[in-house]
């Protein structure tokens, strides 16, 4: 394992008004590591990812990503950083009217100057690269099909190809398979991790499913109400142990919390998420 941390958070907190989304999180991820982020809905997973690529500024604490001080960076510096950090979304977020190839090409916008409209507005070399990346996700034959007409799994694969088009050093994925069926989920996760492994890309991925996290990630991090509550090497423990740990985290969360006093609207949520998490397991 390499030792240089590409992501390092020290005592990072982030609050939205009264909501404490991240609470004193300290964390280091070294280059090439594959990290899964587990936690209930609302535990701060998305906020953590968006703080890493500078879409949110922390309320307090220090973040360094690829040598950039994210909390203090200027806009242009953030943009330079984002070019090196790919992001994959739960809802894919492709431009549905454009072809798959154009969507992949848009991942290269950080590498070209000026706005682009249409496949032919990109240089030939980029077009070839984009097609190769589409082939890597098994969709070269769909290059000129509209992204909106692809199936969910195919759309997420196009989105992965788009992120790869950035030639990123880090890939952040926010519940990338939460809108897909289990079989497709497996394929997409398979694809994402193997590409990142080939290219030595550091991965941080939010997940709901413990088994997917166990299968792919070398390290598992658990968040609960913004706090880091779990950080284990998946190789050091076996699956049932992590599942137990995860369950324990879940069980604790579903009990009334003395801090929040078990307020009404939060009560129902963990239970339902718990059952869906169990189904996923």
């Amino acid at each position, binding site marked *: 394992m390499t030792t240089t941390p590409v992501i390092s958070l020290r005592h990072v907190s982030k609050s939205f008004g009264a909501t404490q989304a991240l609470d004193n999180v300290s964390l280091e991820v070294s280059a090439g590591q594959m990290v899964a982020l587990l936690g209930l809905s609302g535990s701060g997973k998305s906020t953590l990812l968006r703080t890493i690529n500078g879409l949110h500024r922390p309320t307090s604490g220090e973040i360094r990503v690829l040598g950039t001080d994210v909390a203090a960076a200027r806009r242009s510096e953030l943009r330079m950083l984002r070019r090196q950090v790919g992001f994959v979304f739960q809802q894919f977020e492709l*431009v*549905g009217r454009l072809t798959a190839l154009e969507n992949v090409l*848009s991942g290269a*916008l*950080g590498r070209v100057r000026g706005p682009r409209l249409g496949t032919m507005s990109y240089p030939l070399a980029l077009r070839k690269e984009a*097609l190769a990346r589409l082939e890597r996700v*098994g969709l070269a034959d769909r290059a*000129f099909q509209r992204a909106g007409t692809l199936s969910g799994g195919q759309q997420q694969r196009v989105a992965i190809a788009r992120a790869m088009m950035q030639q990123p050093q880090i890939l952040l994925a926010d519940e990338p398979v939460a809108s897909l069926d289990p079989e497709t989920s497996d394929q997409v996760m*398979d694809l994402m991790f193997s590409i990142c492994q080939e290219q030595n890309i550091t991965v941080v991925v939010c997940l709901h499913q413990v088994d997917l996290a166990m299968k792919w990630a070398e390290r598992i991090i658990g968040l609960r109400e913004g706090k880091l509550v779990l950080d284990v090497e998946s190789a050091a423990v076996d699956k049932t142990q992590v599942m137990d740990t995860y369950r324990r985290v879940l069980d604790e969360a579903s009990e009334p919390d003395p801090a929040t006093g078990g307020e009404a*609207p939060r009560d129902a949520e963990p239970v339902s998420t718990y059952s869906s998490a169990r189904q996923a397991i």
Partner: protein
Amino acid sequence: MTTTLTETPAGAVTQQRVRPPITRLGVGLGILAVGALVLIVVSWRATGFGVGVLFSGLGEMWTFLRSTLPPHFSSADYSLGHMLGDVASTVSMAVLGTALAMVLSIPLGFLAARNTTPHPVVRAVARTIVTACRAVPDIIFALIFRDALGIGVLPGILALGLHSIGMLGRLYGDGIEQAPPGPRQAVMASGAGRLQTICASTVPFASPQILSNALYRLDINLRSSVVLGFVGAGGIGFTLQAAMNTLQFQLAIGIVLVMTVLILIMELLSALLRSALIGNDTVRTGRRWISFRKQSRSRGNTMPFDPGRVRPHWTGARVGKASIPYLVLVVLGLAWWDAQVPVSELLSSPGAIAHAVTQYFPPDFTTAGSLLRQGMWQSFVTAVMGTFVGGLIALVISFFAARNIANSWVYRVVRVLLVIGRSIPELIVAIMFVVAVGPGVLAGVFALIVGTIAFLAKLMSDNLEEANPGPRGAIRSTGAGAGQEVVAAVVPPALPGIVGNLLYMLDVNFRASALLGIVGAGGIGFLLAQTVQTFDYRTTGAIVTTTFVIVLLIEQLSNWARRALN
């Protein structure tokens, strides 16, 4: 750990091209684009368009404007009270005309929508009626009814009512077709009958749009009602024309000012009402690119639960919505009272109306000879030039008028300027350009450019605002710049709408340019005015028929282009 996804045959990438394949659709759009380009070049030469002429004419325009200052709001034989009465009857005309159109368009809309029509043939007939109503200019309807019923507000109401079906019937039909099929099937699956299903699933979906589009049409009709007065269909337009014919420009500009302010108020009111009706369901700020619906859902519905209560609570929103029908009734009642519609006269006059219509048939294409051809061609190239130049400028402006793109202050200022621009009656703009660059097509082109900018910039910025914020966030997180982000994620989804609106504008402009001739801005309008004044009905019929055919052709083209792009 290699992937097992092998949908693509090995080595396909080396054989595959990295340029989009040539499809029939692509070829069709290409031909359309080349055709449009040729048309623009031809129109450019035919109209002699150039900005130089405008600059040399600015002095004259200024002199003319000075002669209208200060505006007068009354004259020796025309009191302020008299003017306000005329203004009121103009508003009544617009309100009643729109109401009539709405009443007639609702059934037509349901018959014309694919998902509610009883039979495809019925649908085709309903669509044809709607298109015919749009193709006949409101001013022609006004002439027909004036001949049958005499001078007054009634011909104006009927003219606005019938012509507005062309827009409302179409929008209603399209809106009803957009109702999601899921709830329909669910209601049908519960064993509901056909009409029950429509009432339970389609009507709730369509009703806010029905009222909102009617309000939008009311805006348009208020503008047209001024022009209708020119041909004796009642209201302030009659006085406006008299003032201009007798060179009382100060009074004329006073009337225009009053109407402009009125239209402005109406537009703001109707925008307010419409947003209350439709609500801002969609989050339009580009910054919120991950939805927080979960939170907002738990925040709503804070009413205490009371098992005995089976009526909805009177929340502020419900009071607001419930008062809308009463408000509408009050406005309609006032308009009815003000307009003093002679119902009995209307009921006893179908014969007169039929007679008035038959005067225009059969159309006479020969008497006017080449004048007809020339005028039509002039109107057409005027419309093409006005749409093209105005559309280009509008496209640039629309980026500054889109909430999700522009700085919020720029957005507000530009939107207000556009509303003001839309409030100035087109004919007045045309008159000013006739003064500046002399009579002829060029004045018409300039007038259409001004109108097109004000109208199209709004429609185009609405198109841009509809873009889904999700993909924008995705593009931004690749490190793309702001301009790249907009072009990559906002423009493509807006493109079909923008092209559709451009073609719609060509249609509108062609019909408008047929009227501009009345004030000397070139085109068929001159001949139209002449034939109307000399009671040469059958030549008027020929002009209307030709307009009808061209409007139909433009519409076919725009339907095709819209479908192709979607």
